């Protein structure tokens, strides 16, 4: 009897020794998650928790709404209070590099975790890779779209096809014509924000930094072309500048402008205006005329899931992500229709749900289209000083629109970013 017990114990120990994840499966584990937006990220995380509950019933996923994830993270890590951090958090893609580099050993290395990163859009995975190591599971899709009011186009004698695979000069030409015939500009943008310029930059596979991480603003011929396109858009009246986000949203909700170019998450704001149902269409964005690697695809915004190294159960947290956001087409099928949370998880694009027509967009299968765009978005590295560069470019465009010389303003922006990199 005693012998049998010993044997059993040995067996248990050996068994446990060989599979550490199962070892933890014996006990109850709680994984805390920080993310923002109840109708989007939190909802998606809760659905993921439901799916994982069937796989590992002993794991509880505790989703906490936290709108200032990054500020809390910064404060806690700097204060050395890592025990108060969650196991998983959501991070803006723009900040990934900055935080991975600023806080070494804070994030759990996911490279050898068994998550197949090849299943995600390449450009998105690249944003969370530092020194060849993966630190985040890609989540919401920021693929750039050109959303246009098809009814306005019709009045002017155009269709969505006239805007597909075109260049900015063609866009301008049609835009002026649409403006003449209908009185409606095609675009609106926030005056201080360089968002559209950054979308254009990535569409040509370039950024405000070169691949070595050096500032690439003043000498960047592509950026100069972009600024010229932007000035032309504003001068011709095809793009109207607004002062803030609410005005930007209401410009297309009220129908003052006939379209918008942004990350595909902007769909959430477009569909709010239910009386415009069936009057919208989505296509790819215009490409630059002169830039050598110009494409019709880009990205704006988006976020990814990170596991913290300070977690008591990083393997469980990783396993959870591997079985849900990085492995469950079912999850994406559930969250897509109700929240519009679009994946960069490419296998989800083949799902029937993704191929369903969207009534608001006149029956177009927009999700399948956007997932197809996502696969073609050029890769860039946002780098450690992305926000510094964004602000500098925003100031430059403000000055340029007020009449400053393009080269001088870009030179000044480059100098100011260089100064902040020390």
């Amino acid at each position, binding site marked *: 009897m005693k012998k049998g017990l010993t044997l059993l114990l040995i067996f248990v120990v050996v068994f446990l020794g060989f599979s550490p994840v199962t070892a933890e499966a014996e006990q109850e584990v709680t994984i805390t998650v920080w993310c923002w937006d109840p109708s989007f990220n939190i909802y998606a995380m809760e659905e993921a928790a439901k799916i994982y509950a069937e796989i590992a019933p002993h794991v509880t996923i505790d989703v906490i709404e936290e709108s200032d994830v990054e500020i809390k993270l910064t404060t806690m890590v700097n204060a050395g209070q890592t025990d108060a951090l969650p196991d998983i958090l959501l991070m803006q893609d723009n900040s990934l590099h900055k935080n991975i580099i600023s806080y070494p050993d804070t994030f759990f290395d996911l490279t050898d975790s068994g998550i197949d990163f090849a299943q995600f859009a390449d450009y998105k995975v690249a944003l969370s890779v530092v020194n060849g190591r993966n630190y985040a599971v890609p989540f919401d899709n920021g693929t750039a779209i050109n959303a246009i009011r098809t009814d306005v186009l019709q009045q002017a004698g155009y269709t969505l096809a006239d805007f597909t695979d075109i260049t900015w000069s063609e866009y301008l030409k049609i835009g002026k014509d649409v403006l003449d015939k209908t009185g409606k500009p095609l675009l609106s943008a926030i005056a*201080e924000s360089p968002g559209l310029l950054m979308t254009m930059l990535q569409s040509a596979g370039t950024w405000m930094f070169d691949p070595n991480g050096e500032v690439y603003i003043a000498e960047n011929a592509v950026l100069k072309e972009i600024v010229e396109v932007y000035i032309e858009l504003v001068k011709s009246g095809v793009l109207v500048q607004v002062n803030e986000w609410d005005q930007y949203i209401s410009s297309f909700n009220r129908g003052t402008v006939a379209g918008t170019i942004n990350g595909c998450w902007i769909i959430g704001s477009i569909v709010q205006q239910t009386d415009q149902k069936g009057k919208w269409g989505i296509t790819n964005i215009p490409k630059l005329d002169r830039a050598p690697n110009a494409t019709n695809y880009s990205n704006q915004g988006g976020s990814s899931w990170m596991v913290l190294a300070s977690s008591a159960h990083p393997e469980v947290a990783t396993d959870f992500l591997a079985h849900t956001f990085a492995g469950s087409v079912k999850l994406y099928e559930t969250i897509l229709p109700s929240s519009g949370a679009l994946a960069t998880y490419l296998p989800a694009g083949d799902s029937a749900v993704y191929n369903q027509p969207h009534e608001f967009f006149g029956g177009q299968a927009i999700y399948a289209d956007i997932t197809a765009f996502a696969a073609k978005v050029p890769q860039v590295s946002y780098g450690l000083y992305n926000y510094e560069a964004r602000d500098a470019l925003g100031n430059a465009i403000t*000055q340029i629109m007020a009449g400053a010389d393009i080269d001088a303003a870009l030179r000044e922006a480059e100098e100011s970013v260089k100064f902040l990199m*020390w």
Partner: protein
Amino acid sequence: MLKVLKLKRKQNIIGWGFILPATILIFIFYFYPIIRALLISFQSGVGINLSYAGLINYRRLFVDSLFKGSLSNVFIFLILQVPLMLFLALIIASLLNDHKLKFRGFFRIAIFLPCATSLVAYALIFRSIFALDGFANILLMNLNLISSPINWIGQPWTARILIVLALTWRWTGYNMIFYLAGLQNINPTIYEAAKIDGANAWTRFTKITIPLLKPIILLTTIMSTNGTLQIFDETQILTNGGPANATLSLSQYIYRLSFEYSPRFGYAAAISYVIFLLVAILAFIQMKVGDRR
């Protein structure tokens, strides 16, 4: 004798016992961070990769155009706003101090109420009032004072004026309360005597009210200077430091350095010490100038 000493000691211990909790809390949550910030300001690096760097952060301030820009912005606010606000508060306080004025209580509350509103809420409301299609522009257009809407937050000087306006609206009532309290302490017979001697309202205001309120004017000046040097909410929400950093404040720059840009806590701490020094120096000058006994 011995008994008295014992009693005194006992009283002392009780006294210390009362002060101790507050003292400990002030030390932990005020003085400790102040000292830590000083130590951090001698360190340099991104995020937690900090190392001792001596005076590098302080030396960097002299060549930092963003720092110099935000410093001058803050001084523009200070020079425009503090005198305007305090003068208004003084005048309103003297008007409300008139016992013959009807509805004094109503006016007092109406003027004080803005400073009971949330900083964020009022900044948001100001932003919508001064939007391109906001109330201010519509009003000015209908009065035929302007022909096309003013892009308030889109131009450097209108944006700065907007901040000054907002600050004045928010804080005038707050300072007025101090003056009202001060005015209560001025003997009405002095005014009566001056009236009999033929002094008009302006003379009474400049020769009696202002000199007798001097200690309170000094207090409000120091408080307002301190507050304006640390301005954050208004510039963050109303203008977000724009256009092109024309309204960026020092506190906002500190915030960006710590939480938006690649985190540089050492440098941010150095800037916070500059604010500390500025407040100290300005308060010292104001006390020297204002307190000539």
